[in-house]
C-alpha cells in the first residue's frame, strides 16, 4: 500500500445558501480545493462524491455524473458513495483506498448537500431515512428523537445533565464565531440553549445541528508525489470504518456507539498513537449528546464523564483537547453529505497552521469522527503533518 496525503481542500460557506444550487455549491468547493492543491482538472484521475439524500431533497440522483460534468472533469470515473451523515467520510475513505492501492494517483473527493429547498418536515423525513424506515420512522421517530432517546438514557445511567449538554453548544458556537465558513458565527450563552424551544425532549433547538446547504472537497495524492503540489502535505495515517445494527432498538447499549469504539481502536493501531496524543479533533456532534458520547467512545475521557469533561472546559479551544474547532456540526452547520469532508478540511488547516483565530497551538496530529444515522456507520481518520 502507498502512503496517502491530502494536498488540497476547499469549502463553500455553510448556511442557507438560497442563491446557490447543488451544482453551484460543489463546483465552488471543487475550484477552491484544486486551487489550494495547485492542480488543474486535467491532473485528476477519479472522483468520489458523498451525498445522503439528493433524491429526496432536490429530486436529483446520479450526482457524481453531474459533478464531473459541471466541474469539467469528464471522462474520469465518478462514483457516488452513500452512508447517511457519514457519506463524506466514506467517500474520502474510498478515495484513500484508490490512491493507497495504486489504482488512481490523484483523486478528488467531494461531499455536498442542498437541504433548504424543502420544508423542515420534509427534511426530517428525508434524514429519517438514515434510520430504519419500517420500524423507527413508521412509528413517528425523527433523528432528533432518536438522539433524545440516547440522551435520556445517558442522563439516567450516568447523571449527565441538560446543562452539560448545553455546554457543548456554547463551546461549538464560540469556535464557529471564529470560522468564516460557519453557519452561525455568533457566540451564545448557556441561557440561549436552555431557553430555546424543545424539539424532542430533552433536546432543544440549540442542542441540534441545523439544516444547512454546503459543500466540501479534498484532493488526495500519493505522499511521495505530494510535495509537487504543496509545501505542507498532510498524511492520512489511519482510515477506519465500522458498522452496527441499523435501528437503535436493536443495539445492546444506546449510551455508546460500538461502531465508534471499534473504528477508533483500529485507527489508533494503524496510526500507532493513543487518544492522549490527539490535540485536535472534529467529532460528530449532530446533537450535543452525540459529542458527549463521542469523546467518551474515542477514549478522550472515561465512559459517563463526557458531560463533566465538557462542563470543566477540557474540550474548549486550546485546552486539554480542542474538540470541534470548526464549530462542529452544531455551529458550522451540517449539510449531511459534506460534513465528513469538511471535518478533514478543518484538520488539514489546523495541522498546516492556517486555522486563523481558532488555531490550536502546536497541532501535529488530528482526528476526525463521522457518524451515519444513529451510529450504524462510523468512520475515524487520523491525519498527521509530515516534516
Amino acid at each position, binding site marked *: 500500500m502507498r502512503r496517502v496525503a491530502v494536498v488540497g481542500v476547499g469549502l463553500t460557506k455553510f448556511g442557507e445558501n438560497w442563491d446557490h444550487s447543488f451544482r453551484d455549491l460543489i463546483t465552488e468547493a471543487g475550484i477552491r480545493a484544486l486551487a489550494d492543491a495547485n492542480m488543474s482538472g486535467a491532473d485528476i484521475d477519479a472522483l468520489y462524491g458523498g451525498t445522503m439524500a439528493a433524491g429526496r431533497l432536490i429530486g436529483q440522483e446520479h450526482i457524481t455524473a453531474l459533478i464531473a460534468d459541471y466541474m469539467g472533469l469528464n471522462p474520469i470515473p465518478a462514483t457516488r458513495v452513500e452512508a447517511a451523515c457519514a457519506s463524506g467520510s466514506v467517500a474520502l475513505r474510498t478515495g484513500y483506498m484508490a490512491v493507497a492501492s495504486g489504482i488512481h494517483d490523484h483523486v478528488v473527493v467531494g461531499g455536498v448537500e442542498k437541504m433548504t429547498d424543502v420544508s423542515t418536515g420534509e427534511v426530517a423525513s428525508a434524514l429519517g431515512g438514515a434510520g430504519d*424506515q419500517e420500524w423507527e*420512522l413508521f412509528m413517528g421517530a425523527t433523528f432528533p428523537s432518536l438522539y433524545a432517546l440516547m440522551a435520556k438514557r445517558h442522563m439516567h445511567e450516568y447523571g449527565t445533565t441538560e446543562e452539560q449538554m448545553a455546554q457543548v453548544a456554547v463551546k461549538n458556537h464560540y469556535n464557529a464565531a471564529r470560522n468564516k465558513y460557519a453557519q452561525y458565527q455568533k457566540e451564545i450563552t448557556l441561557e440561549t440553549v436552555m431557553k430555546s424551544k424543545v424539539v424532542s425532549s430533552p433536546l432543544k433547538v440549540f442542542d441540534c445541528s441545523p439544516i444547512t446547504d454546503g459543500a466540501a472537497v479534498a484532493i488526495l495524492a500519493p505522499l511521495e508525489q505530494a510535495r509537487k503540489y504543496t509545501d505542507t502535505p498532510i498524511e492520512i495515517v489511519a482510515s477506519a470504518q465500522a458498522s452496527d445494527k441499523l435501528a437503535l432498538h436493536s443495539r445492546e447499549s444506546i449510551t455508546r456507539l460500538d461502531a465508534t469504539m471499534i473504528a477508533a481502536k483500529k485507527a489508533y493501531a494503524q496510526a500507532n498513537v493513543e487518544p492522549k496524543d490527539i490535540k485536535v479533533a472534529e467529532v460528530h456532534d449532530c446533537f450535543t449528546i452525540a459529542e458527549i458520547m463521542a469523546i467518551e467512545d474515542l477514549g478522550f475521557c472515561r465512559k459517563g464523564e463526557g458531560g463533566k469533561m465538557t462542563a470543566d472546559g477540557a474540550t474548549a479551544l486550546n485546552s486539554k483537547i480542542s474538540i470541534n474547532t470548526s464549530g462542529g456540526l452544531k455551529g458550522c452547520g451540517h449539510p449531511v453529505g459534506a460534513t465528513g469532508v469538511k471535518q478533514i478540511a478543518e484538520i488539514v488547516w489546523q495541522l498546516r497552521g492556517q486555522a486563523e483565530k481558532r488555531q490550536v497551538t502546536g497541532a501535529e496530529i488530528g482526528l476526525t469522527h463521522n457518524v451515519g444515522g444513529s451510529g450504524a456507520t462510523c468512520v475515524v481518520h487520523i491525519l498527521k503533518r509530515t516534516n
Partner: protein
Amino acid sequence: MMNSSPSSWRRIPERYCLIGTSCETCKANYFPPRLICPKCRRKGKMVDKQYSGIGKVYSYSLVNVPPSGFEIEAPYVLALIELEEGPHLTAQVVDCEEKDVSIGAPVRMVFRKIQESGPHGLIHYGFKFVLSK
C-alpha cells in the same frame, strides 16, 4: 410515498399481532423479525415468536417537531420499549402526558392507528403502548 399498500400489508402480522422471530439454536428473541440470526447465521434456526405485548419503558422523548405525516399527532411520546421476552422496539406511548412516563414504567401494547397516507390514502395501523395501571 413510503407506505404503499403492499409494503403496509406485508407487515400486518408483525405490526398488528407483535409476531417476531426466535432462534432455536441460541434462544435469542428478535423483534422486528429477522430471516437470519446475526449471532448464529447459517447455524441458526429461526421460528416465529408471538410476543405478549408486556414490557417497560427503556427510554422516551416528547416529540414536538414531527416528520411529515405526523403533524396532527404532535406532540407525542416516542419510546424504546423493553419487551418482557427481551427485545427492544420503538413505539409511541399514548393516553398519557410526558410527565407520567419514566424509565422503567410498566407498559402494555394496544392496537392503534399509526398514520395516514394523505387525506384519501391508506390508513396504517399497528402497535402503540399505554402505561399499565
